[in-house]
């Protein structure tokens, strides 16, 4: 087997990695906004749920979360009579999304609180409801501020997908390990996948830049 023969199984693995990254990033994005806005909610119940979620997922290791969801959750489910056995893909997407969502929530909260207080006051003076003020005044100004951090988190998440191979999910790292076991040609295999991950990260960075241009369009239009 020469290195060219590795490319087919590796590209299959890469496709799994891409899907894993896309779905967990989307889940993480939704959770970021939910928990980030929840943390500054005026309702104490929502606020405490958001704070507990953020602290637990930021304070523990991703691999611990992944193992907990994959190994411990089914047993916990069985104890209360529920079938909570997750297939590796679901467990992987859930753990990655929950983890990156907690980091994203702090970005969202920070960006919302960085919007000048006068903007809140102006919205109130114009008789906007709190919800309208958030959606039409605050978020359009806060989202551009979040983008650089979101870009870093997306790359972070892409790198973290490699950990999903440890719960026997057939991603790029998993395929590489299989090929290595079979051929013992570790240098070639790992060099190839290091560059594949690097390539994916570069593409992802470019896509996040594009997204940043889209959400900051109104800033250029105004000036």
């Amino acid at each position, binding site marked *: 087997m020469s290195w060219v023969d590795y490319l087919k199984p590796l590209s299959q693995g890469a496709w799994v990695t891409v899907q894993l990254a896309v779905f967990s990033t989307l889940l993480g994005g939704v959770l970021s906004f939910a928990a980030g806005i929840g943390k500054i909610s005026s309702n104490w119940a929502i606020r405490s749920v958001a704070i507990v979620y953020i*602290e*637990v997922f*930021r*304070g*523990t*290791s*991703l*691999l*611990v*979360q992944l*193992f*907990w969801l994959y*190994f*411990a959750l089914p*047993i*916990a489910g069985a104890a209360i009579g529920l079938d909570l056995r997750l297939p590796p893909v679901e467990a992987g997407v859930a753990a990655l999304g929950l983890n990156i969502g907690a980091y994203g929530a702090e970005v969202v909260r920070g960006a919302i609180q960085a919007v000048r207080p006068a903007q809140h006051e102006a919205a109130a003076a114009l008789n906007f409801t709190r919800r309208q003020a958030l959606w039409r005044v605050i978020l359009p100004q806060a989202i551009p501020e979040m983008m650089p951090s979101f870009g870093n988190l997306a*790359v972070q998440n892409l*790198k*973290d*997908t*490699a*950990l999903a*191979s*440890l719960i026997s999910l057939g991603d790029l*790292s998993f395929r*590489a*390990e299989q090929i*290595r076991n079979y051929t013992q040609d*570790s*240098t070639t295999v*790992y*060099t190839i*996948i*290091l560059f594949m*991950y*690097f390539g994916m*990260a*570069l593409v992802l960075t470019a896509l996040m830049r594009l997204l940043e241009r889209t959400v900051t369009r109104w800033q250029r239009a105004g000036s």
Partner: protein
Amino acid sequence: MLFGLSWDTDHGELAFAISILPILLRGLLVTLEASIAGFAVALVLGLIFAILKSARSRWISWPAIAIAEFCRDTPLLVQLFFLYYVLADIGIILPAFLTGALALGVQYSAYMAEVYRAGIEAVPKGQREAAHALDLTNARTFTHVILPQAVPRVVPALGNYLVSIMKDVPVLSVVTVLEMLNVAKIIGDQTFDYIVPLSMVGGLYLLLTLVASTIVRLIDVSLPKTGLPLR
């Protein structure tokens, strides 16, 4: 049985939890050692990257920028496997623990380099000019004027990366390092009870990161804001 300590599966969950706590704490000790070793590697490598990246010659700075970017954008797990297998292939046999510390250091050096750069750039330009006017050599300016003022600024950021490193140490379990998560996994594999050990690891991690970030904040508060006193 692990580290010569055995667990108690016959007297309920609580007795089991209490019996495995000392074993998990042994794992926690390994986690701390690996974090500190990895942090030390990252501190040194990061400074090297920071200096090379700001080199005047493009022949030095561009490759340094590319390599740092590569280290930052590739997964720790893959870097770890790479070092573990490839170093062995070329005849460098390191204990798993050292390979792990090296991988953590490589991964975080790229982040550290950015922190150093920000800290150095935050020192007012007038300081460098004053040092120049006082006829200090470049090396002396760096070690006696720039660094003492840059260090207090970067301590919180460096501390946060130490906390991040702690959370990445479980990855080292794949190369047989007996850190806390690996210990919990082995206990789970042998007793078929994953909930208790894995949840305890989660709890211990929360405690660990809480304590570590409090220490980082205390150090930050106690550092002089205008620069370290020399001697």
